[in-house]
Structures are given as C-alpha cells and as structure tokens.
C-alpha cells in the first residue's frame, strides 16, 4: 500500500507539490489525471527518489514504511517501480545485462541468491513472449534506437520481471499509437492482482479505456482536487480541466 500524506516538494526552489494526499491500496488501480504542469511527473519522480526534488513537508509510506530517506535503488528493492514517460537510453549497456543487473541487485537487497543465468533467461523469455518484445531488442543497448512503442514495452517488461508491489506508470500512453497502446495495456493488465497496486498517471482518458481504474484522482496545481470512480475520467474528457485549474490556484 502506498500512502502519500500532505506532500510538499520543490524543484529548483519552486514549490510544485503543495500538500498532496493520496492512498493506493493493494490490488487497486488508481489513476491520476491532470492538466500539463499540475505536477504529475514531479510526483512520480519524488516518490521514486530522483535527485534534485526536495521534499519540504509530508511523508510517503510504502507498506507502512517511510521511503523518503531511501535512495532510489532501496525504494525499488522495497517494491516500488516507475515506468518512465521517457525511458532513458543507455548506450553501451546491453539490455539483457541491464535486466540481469537489476533483478540480481533487488534479490541481493532482499537477501536472496543471484539468479542462475539459465533461470534468468527462462523468465525473460516468458515475459518477452507475452509482451511481443523482439529477441533482437534484448541484444541491443538499452532503449537505444528503440521506437516509442518499443521503449514502453521494455518498461512493462522490466515491470513484469521486477514484480513490484506498487507500480507508477508515468504517461505510459504518450507517443503510442493504438496498437502499441493495446499491447502495453494488456501487459499491465496481466500484472494486475490483489497484492499489487498501480498509480496510473495520464493526461488523457484514452489510456483508461484499456487500463480500467478503480479510482480516479484529479490533480491540479500540486494537489489532488477531486476523487471519484471511473466515470470521473469520462467527465474530464467531456469537460476538460478548466474548472480545476481555477480552483487550485
């Protein structure tokens, strides 16, 4: 379970999150929708622990444990996963090598033994088949020269290998055509379960047609300004964010 309480955070001295409170229960798919500049991506980076994002107030608990003092790798080992809006290209680092390093680092952190290579290969092959990730992608440098759709599929592949307790999907639909969106959404849906929560950040309602949320939150000017069921997404699509922008400022 993810609990965010009265979170305030600055970027470059400017307050972006202004008292955000939100809970994602185990098994829940919560969506955050909001206009550009409302602080959606900042929220995902603050929770994941990116440097340069200064928390001035509030707390973030993952399964009851405060994670704000932990470096990003420790948060990951505790079960947090961030699917990036813009997955980072890492030239020279083979995708398989990276996946193995990530899986083994988390295992090590949890006091588990490293995965033997054949077992690792087997796990990757299964996940890769489901997501339609080409074998060739795994041999290339991580995300280098991948299309937008390939990059997002790689994010979901990593998510499925790392098996997080709480996954944040930051604008996973951006830059995807309908076919790619469907593949990615299917991948996410396959990972839904009673012990895993999702925080799906999106600007458009479109993604939520494929990943059906249990809860929809509206974010504006660094706060959650309205919470409702899936119908809220449709209302937003029809009416836009105008009323909220005024309200929060």
């Amino acid at each position: 379970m993810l609990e965010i309480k009265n979170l305030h955070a600055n970027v470059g001295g400017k307050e972006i999150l202004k008292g955000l409170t939100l809970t994602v229960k185990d098994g829940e798919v919560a969506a955050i929708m909001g206009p550009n500049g409302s602080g959606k991506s900042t929220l995902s980076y603050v929770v994941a622990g990116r440097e340069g994002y200064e928390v001035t107030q509030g707390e973030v608990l993952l399964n009851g444990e405060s994670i704000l003092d932990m470096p990003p790798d420790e948060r990951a080992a505790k079960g947090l996963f961030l699917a990036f809006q813009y997955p980072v290209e890492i030239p020279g680092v083979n995708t398989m090598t990276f996946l193995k390093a990530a899986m083994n680092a988390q295992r090590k952190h949890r006091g588990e033994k490293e995965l033997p290579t054949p077992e690792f290969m087997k796990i990757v092959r299964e996940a890769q088949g489901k997501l339609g990730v080409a074998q060739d992608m795994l041999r290339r440098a991580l995300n280098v020269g991948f299309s937008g759709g390939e990059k997002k599929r790689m994010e979901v592949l990593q998510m499925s290998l790392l098996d997080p307790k709480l996954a944040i999907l930051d604008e996973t639909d951006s830059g995807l055509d309908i076919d790619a969106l469907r593949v990615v959404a299917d991948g996410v849906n396959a990972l839904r379960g009673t012990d895993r929560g999702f925080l799906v950040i999106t600007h458009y309602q479109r993604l939520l047609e494929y990943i059906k949320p249990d809860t929809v939150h509206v974010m504006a000017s660094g706060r959650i300004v309205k919470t409702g069921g899936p119908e809220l997404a449709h209302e937003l699509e029809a009416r836009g964010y105008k009323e909220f922008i005024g309200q929060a400022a």
Partner: protein
Amino acid sequence: MNAVVKRARTEVESALSGAFDALAPQLPGQARVRALRADAAALFASQGLPTRRVEAWHYSDLRAQMKDVLPLAGRPDAGAIAQAQAVLQPVREGQVRAVLVDGYFIEELSAGLVTSDITLRTLDDVLETGDKVAIDILSAKNLGKGDTALALNTAFMRGGVVIDVEPGYHAALPIELVSITIADAPKAIFSRSMVRAGAGATFTLVEKHITLGDARVQKNDALVLFASGRSQVEHSFHRARTGDNEVHVHSLLTIVWEEAKLNSVALVEGGGFLRRQIFARFEAEGAELSLASATLLRGKDHADTTLVVDHANPGNTSREYFKHIVDESATGVFQGKVVVAQHAQKTDGVMKSQTILLGDDAAMYNKPELEIFADDVTCGHGATVGALDPAQLFYAMSRGIPRADAETLLLEAFAGDAIERLSDESLREAMLQRVRDWLKGRVA
C-alpha cells in the same frame, strides 16, 4: 622584428647531450645509423626537452618531469628475467611472442620465433647489418619531425625487435610484443621496435607495456608500424597501470600504404606521467586507419595522448575515437590533429574525444584540430567533457541497482565503446576485464 629566444640548457639537457657523445661509439649501427643518431642528437641539443612553450607539448611539460638523468638500463640479469617471466600469460602453441625486458629482447621469454612467414630480428642486428630498407622504415623520417622527445629515442635507440610478416600471410594467432620494465632501481630505457606487414598480410599485433616495481623510470620507446599495400592489421595496445615514478614517452609511428586497413585500439591505464604520441601518414590511396582508445586515470596520474594523422595523399579514411575517464585529481590530455594535404581530395576523417570527469579535482584538456588544404573532403571533429549522466544514473537506480554499481555499469559501457572496436573477441574481453578491474579499484 622577431627575436629568436634561445633558452639556457638545463643540467639535464646538457647531461643528456653529454651522455650521447660519450655513448655514441658503442651504440649499434653503421655509418647511416650513426648519421641518423647524430642528426637527432643535434636537434635535441638545439631544442632541448619539450616544455609548455612547444605547442604540441603545451599540456605536458616533459622538461619539468625530467629533473635528472637516470642511468641507462643495462641488460637484465637472471633475477629480472624471472620477475618478468612471472607476469607472462601462457603462450599458445605456434604463437609468436617477443618479450623485451628493460628494452632488451629476451629470447628465452619469447616464443615461436622460427617460422617461415614471420621473421624476427633484434633492432641492434638490423642496425648493425645495415639493412637499408629496414633502416629507412625504422627512421620514419616523415613522422614526428621536430619532436625532440622522439629525437632522443632516435639518438639512443637500442634494444627492441624488428618483426616482418611475409606478404600474403594470414596469421591465425596474434603476434605479441610485450615490453616489461623492472623498476627495481632508477633507470632510463630507449628502445625502438618495428612491425612490418608485407603486402596483403593479415594479422593481429598485441602490444603490452607492464612495469613491475616503483623505482624511478624514464622510458622513451617507439613502435614503427608499417602497413604495406592491402595489408590488414589489427593492433591492440595495453599499458598497464604503473607506480607514480614512471615518466613514459611512447611514440607510435604508423605508415599506411594503398588499400591497407589498420585498426588500433588501446587501453591506457595511468600511473606517473605518460605521453602517448601517434604519428600516422597515408603514403598512397584507398586506405583505412582507425585509432581508438580508452584511458583510465586516477590519483595524480597525468596521461597525454597526442596524435597527428597526415592525409598526405588522396582518398583515405581515418577515424579517431578517444575516451577518457578521469578520477580523483588526475589529468588527461587529448590533442588530435588531422592534416589534409592540398592534393588529398576525397579524404574522409572523423575524430571524436569524449571524457567523463569523476573527481572534483580531475582535469581534461582537449585540443582537436583540423588542418585542411584540400577542398573536396569530409572531415569533422567533436569533443565533450562531462560528468556521468544523472538521468541514466537515476534510471538504473530506479531499477534497484545501487549507485556504485550503476556508475560502474555506465563507465564500463563508456570505455567499452572504444574497446568494442577491437574485432578479436578474446582480446576485447580481456581488455574489458581490465576495465572492470580498474573500476573495482575505484569503488574500493
């Protein structure tokens, strides 16, 4: 009015000139070689050791490093040879390996010397017997002109080997040239070797430099790499980390003939003061030269790579990829100059230098230069210096990889980008392992 500023000789410079005068009669070589040495000694006597005032040495003051003259290394004794032997990897069946200890060829550590396709002679033999063609190549008179550090090597050259690969011969195993310095007492080493690829010959040359011990050493050595027409040579260069007391000037003199392919990839570990200078020249058309290196520096290391690629003829391709990782308070220097002669049309040259600075006191000096007199050429260069990319680090850490491991992953990839250019897989893997070892040392 221009005034010619003559600076006073330092004691060291006078002593070096004096040492040459005293030693010249005993150095190997007949009249032509003597003249060659005398000319080089005269150049040195008039110009002295390079200082910051010499443009090509602006970031590496050799005179300041050479505070005294160290005794010339003598032939290694049995103890030194045994020490050298201990660091040699097992030789493969049929492999040619030439081992130099303190600059001298040591036959008992070498292997595979008697084959019909590869001939090995000592430098001293070649100089003494007056093989005119070989001496001409060895003297590399169009390369590194006016460089007084190279002139010192020419004046004093002794020791080293001359390896000839027969035309058309395709060597299955790499030819190794291992230069081991036993730094148990202060010494100066001046050796020169040559590897000549006959027309159409194809082989890999593995050059290694290893220093054992931490006594003061002045090593000034050179390799002449001569690629005849249509030969294909891969050159793997590794300089293992030395102690802080080594002052090393290494000159690679490369002559490339028609349609030859020469691919040189280096892993340079720091230690002390290192100047690696590469002088390359295209003598005909249609050749490809690729020079790449990864340089790893820490502590107070100073490593300077300076290269001049002379497109003296049309229609040749050159590529230079130089990577530096500079940690702690080390200093890296890259000076790359691509010269395109007026008639060298259809020249294709790309030079890149990339650096990651890790230490707060680490420094890197980059000076890429293009000197183009022809009008129909494709040439470019780029140089970057920066820290590790925070976005890449965060991405890796967000997947659970701890910072130190994430840094290692990214740095290995960065250095690996140069090393990947080596086509021999086992050599490449061995080099990458050295990079990993170096990175491990960093984390500890």
